[in-house]
């Protein structure tokens, strides 16, 4: 605790994208994703343009493509689901490589894959260019309830501590020759989860006492002022502005 290491999601840099106010980037990201979801799926070129826009942002921010690709793996469970759609949708069939598939299902699958992928990459870029603590400050600035932001802050700050604790317990289990093979190893894992809960809860109590002894009265003192100049807002909102143009063009030609 207290060490100033950057979180592993954050790719340090000093690009224009990195330096924008976090609240501007949050608003721009959410607006961009909503506009993408509103785009009619059959206008495939619109999604190519969205991808191009994100590629430009990634290039300006110097976020390497392999980093983005690696983090896109979170999407995999839903890709599997999307791939099942052409088989499950009733209606017109088209033959693709000798397999009967539903054309409506193919479009649904494309719809989910395209929009989910653009959404995931947008979120990855946000987290890669903005320090987690700055994002939390940005959320507070956007009038998210203070208590909620505090809880999120504690979660983010301590998730590494708790995850490390879990990792140490796993190594301790391995050192004693334990390997989770089947359902019978469940009680052992549950004991670990129980111990982890007790340790987390007790740590929470200690943190609370430590905060009280440092004068905590229910709100955290703000040490950084993150007021964003109009230039930041203009620059960040250029992203959803471009998306509005693409969306309008897609709607008109649909």
């Amino acid at each position, binding site marked *: 605790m207290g060490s100033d290491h950057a979180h592993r*999601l954050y790719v340090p840099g000093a690009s224009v994208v990195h330096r924008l106010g976090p609240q501007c980037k*949050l608003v721009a*990201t*959410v607006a961009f994703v909503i506009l*993408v*979801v*509103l785009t009619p*799926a059959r206008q495939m070129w619109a999604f190519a343009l969205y991808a191009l826009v994100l590629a430009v942002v990634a290039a300006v921010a110097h976020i390497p493509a392999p980093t983005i690709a690696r983090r*896109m793996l*979170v999407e995999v469970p*839903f890709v599997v689901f999307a791939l099942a*759609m052409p088989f*499950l*949708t*009733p209606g017109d069939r088209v033959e693709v490589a000798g397999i009967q598939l539903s054309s*409506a*299902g193919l479009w*649904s699958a494309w*719809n*989910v894959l395209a*929009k*989910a992928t*653009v*959404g*995931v990459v947008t*979120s990855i870029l*946000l*987290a890669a260019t903005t320090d*987690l603590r700055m*994002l939390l400050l940005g959320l507070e600035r956007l009038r998210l*309830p203070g*208590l909620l932001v*505090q*809880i999120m802050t*504690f*979660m*983010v700050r301590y*998730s590494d501590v*708790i*995850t490390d*604790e879990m990792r140490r317990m796993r190594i301790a289990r391995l050192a004693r020759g334990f390997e*989770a093979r*089947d*359902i019978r190893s*469940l009680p052992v894992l*549950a*004991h*670990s*989860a*129980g*111990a*982890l*809960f*007790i340790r*987390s*809860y007790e740590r*929470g109590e200690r*943190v*609370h006492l430590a905060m009280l002894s440092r004068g905590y009265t*229910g709100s955290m003192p703000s040490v950084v002022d993150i007021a964003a100049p109009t230039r930041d807002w203009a620059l960040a909102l250029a992203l959803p502005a471009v998306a509005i143009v693409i969306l309008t063009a897609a709607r008109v030609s649909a």
Partner: protein
Amino acid sequence: MHVPDGFIDVPTSLGAGVVAAGAIAVSLKGARRELDDRTAPLAGLVAAFIFAVQMLNFPVAAGTSGHLLGGALAAVLVGPYTGALCIAVVLLVQGLFFADGGLTALGVNVTDMSVVGVGVGYLVFLGLVRILPKTRSAVVVASAVAAFVSVPAAAAAFTGFYAIGATSSVPVGTVLGAMVGVHLLIGLGEAAITAATVASVIGVRPDLVRGARHLQAPLDLRITPTTRPLTPGAFDA
């Protein structure tokens, strides 16, 4: 099971967002009642615990593994409001920072897993604890059933959103069947690990299990008359 962007249409997602925001506001109030001024650090740490424990994979069968969702577990351990709040915070952090679950689908995800998952889980738990005998094993059994029911309930809630605002034309019946079917299986694993975790915490620190509070005997002061009065200086040596 995090819904990504583009799966549910925008009006339905926004509606779900309003429901989720309301639910978070209610659980913030409720959590303050459960934890008073300890809310921020304790709910934060419990959320970090849920986040970590969701990474704990346990083997199911034939090389597949599952992980805990933790809704019912959180409700039994820390109470329904704090539990729902912690799950919602985990989903917010996963969606905003880890790209896990779409930003536009945050409302749907929070409503499914935090409101319905924790809510249904806790109601089942409460009902069972009322009718079962007042023992520790009854609490464990009740938490197992609650966990088992909470997972398909969340899946059914997702299907409800799908029925209202689907972007694809897979029939609702097919989705309901597949979602609830798969999640009944996941629910079995959830039930087993939730029960075992609750049992292990009850064994060590029963005072930390909110769902077992009714089992705690109130402390009473017993005064035993001593036969030999203490003499001054008895402990000096």
